[in-house]
């Protein structure tokens, strides 16, 4: 009986257009769009050369010195401190990719500026670095103005200091002098995308639950009239949903690695394993949503969609450093957001290999899944319809 339901449910899901569209094709299309959108920025870190830059100190003060020191400290910057005329000549010759003017130059007072004469990876890195520097500087000013405790200030300073030491998360490099593997920070977007695809599993399980409940659909009435325990039909349906979801996310991971040729720098089995656990959390969440709201058909789509998109957004799908911002202001949110846990685990795995962070993130995902299943069980066991 279990096998009969499992096989037919899998067949049904693999033929559903919405399932193929949203859970299989949409993430692949989005990954392709990211790849095309980021363009050459997602080059393999291994072939990247240093970025040559000329620094023109417009004013001889501590702010300018600090800025110069910061740029010089970046391992991927080849810095030359020269006069404005020399810098212009070097830029014209192509010896440097850009000129950084220290704060209080020709730009707005207090902010550094950049001059380039071409478009390319080096110029983009310099531009992103500058944007990140200015953004961090403003953020620091804001924190200093609004911080309630010295602890807040310290945390913010640590975060920004860390950010600066790597250049920026927006730059397509992530250097770690401690020996970590070099991974394009743009890969974080792909991790968030994988997280979103995993959480799309919640749609599948909400739909499966709806089909199994007499209070939700006419097909549900057929199930409940049949001599099959509800727990058995639900388990078979949910496992078929999980299998379908695993096929979808595995295809996405393989597509990123082998078609887009973006390396995860780690055996794929660990990426797939963590993603599978996140899919389990997605499936479990979907069951919970179905149990809570399934009697309202519009909620069956709206709630899992909102859940997947909000979690993915908070993990950095649209704004790369969203997870870091949340870590400063609402750190617990990153611990209960399955998308953030997955991206954190993948970040750690692909940068440092298997570590306690990876396993802790997996454990947290499993705890979330168990909690969702527990809540669903409590609701479903009490279901004895008063109306249909």
């Amino acid at each position: 009986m279990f096998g009969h339901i499992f096989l037919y449910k899998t067949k049904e899901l693999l033929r559903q257009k919405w399932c193929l569209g949203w859970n299989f094709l949409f993430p692949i299309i989005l990954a392709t769009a990211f790849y095309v959108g980021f363009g050459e920025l997602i080059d393999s870190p291994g072939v990247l050369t240093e970025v040559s830059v000329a620094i023109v100190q417009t004013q001889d003060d501590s702010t300018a010195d600090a800025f110069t020191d910061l740029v010089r400290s970046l391992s991927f910057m080849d810095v030359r401190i020269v006069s404005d005329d020399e810098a212009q000549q070097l830029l014209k010759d192509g010896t440097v990719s850009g000129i950084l003017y220290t704060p209080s130059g020709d730009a707005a007072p207090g902010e550094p500026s950049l001059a380039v004469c071409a478009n390319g990876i080096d110029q983009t890195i310099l531009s992103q670095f500058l944007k990140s520097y200015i953004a961090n500087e403003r953020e620091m000013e804001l924190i200093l103005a609004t911080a309630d405790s010295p602890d807040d200030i310290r945390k913010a300073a640590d975060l920004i200091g860390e950010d600066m030491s790597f250049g920026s998360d927006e730059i397509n490099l992530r250097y770690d002098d401690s020996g970590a593997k070099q991974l394009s920070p743009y890969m974080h977007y792909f991790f968030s995308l994988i997280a979103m695809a995993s959480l799309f599993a919640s749609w599948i399980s909400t739909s499966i639950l709806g089909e199994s409940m007499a209070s939700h659909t006419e097909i549900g009435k057929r199930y409940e009239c049949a001599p099959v325990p509800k727990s058995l039909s639900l388990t078979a349906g949910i496992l078929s949903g999980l299998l379908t979801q695993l096929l979808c996310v595995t295809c996405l991971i393989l597509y990123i690695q082998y078609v887009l040729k973006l390396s995860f720098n780690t055996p794929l089995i660990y990426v797939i394993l963590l993603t599978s656990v996140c899919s389990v959390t997605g499936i479990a969440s979907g069951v919970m949503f179905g149990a809570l709201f399934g009697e309202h058909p519009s909620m069956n789509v709206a709630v899992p969609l909102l859940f997947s998109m909000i979690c993915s957004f908070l993990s950095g799908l649209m704004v790369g450093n969203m997870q870091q911002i949340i870590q400063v202001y609402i750190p617990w949110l990153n611990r209960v957001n399955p998308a953030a846990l997955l991206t954190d685990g993948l970040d750690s795995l692909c940068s440092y290999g298997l570590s306690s962070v990876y396993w802790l993130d997996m454990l947290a995902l499993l705890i979330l899944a168990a909690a969702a299943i527990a809540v669903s069980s409590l609701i479903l066991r009490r279901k004895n319809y008063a109306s249909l």
Partner: protein
Amino acid sequence: MQQEAAQFTPVVSISNLVKRYHEKVAVDHFYLTVGEGEILGLLGPNGSGKTTTLNCLLSLLKYDKGDISVFGKPMTPSAYDIKRDIGVVMQNVAVIDALSVYENIDFFCGLYIRDKAQRKRCVEDAIAFTGLSEYRKYRPKKLSGGLLRRLNIACGIAHRPKLIIFDEPTVAVDPQSRNAILDGIRRLNKEGTTVIYTSHYMEEVEELCSRIVIIDNGHQVAEGTASSLKASLRNRETTTVEVSRITEEDLRSLREISHVYDVMVNGGTLIIRCDGGSHNLVHIMNFLMERGIDFGRISTQLPTLNDVFLEITGKELRD
């Protein structure tokens, strides 16, 4: 006769069933017994409590009061041995769009029958029975409304249940498909299947069912065969005559004709009700000719279940 059979071999027994939706009483102290081999018609207007009663019978709904037993055993949500012998054809089509006709029937049949070879035979029989042989590879979306209803029936009966519940299976169905469905139900019954058939179409119930229970506001208002229910009416024959003019004196004299108990004029139409007798139409025509009353079309109508319902509840079945 059927009632006696029901008493001896009850397939379904419902006693004192009460189901409330908040303040509204949907089923009100309802009793029902269905005997083996019967086609029981549950007739009532929309909202009378037919579907709620069936949902309670199938343990899909919890009810406030009463006892329900099927095949002599109490019916509960986990009474799988009972459920195995029940087939349900829902009011709304309940099939899976992503599966073909064959797969749909096989899937739902598989919830009842584990043995693959037996299941295959059952599915083939159900396909042949519902006339879906040439559509077996079609997806439900490609089927017409009538064919979809047939598929819905095939999914409910493929496992060869002893009791089949049809909940308004002919709603929004064309006459040809409707006749096919009713023929199919008759054939199932001839093979020994007990049938509970709900509808608000009195003609269908009258044509198909060996016994009829009329339900209104959640309780039983009448029960019997179609002929016994109609026999309980005073009105046995209604004659309508188009007349150009008629006087009060004529009406008084008409009422004196044997078996005529009610005469009224509605516009240019004379309506005469008789409580029995024979050759009533001849007597009425003779009277009109003797009095020199010009008349046009004449029609006579035997009572329907709607008249039964009208007389008992004061309202029409389709109100």
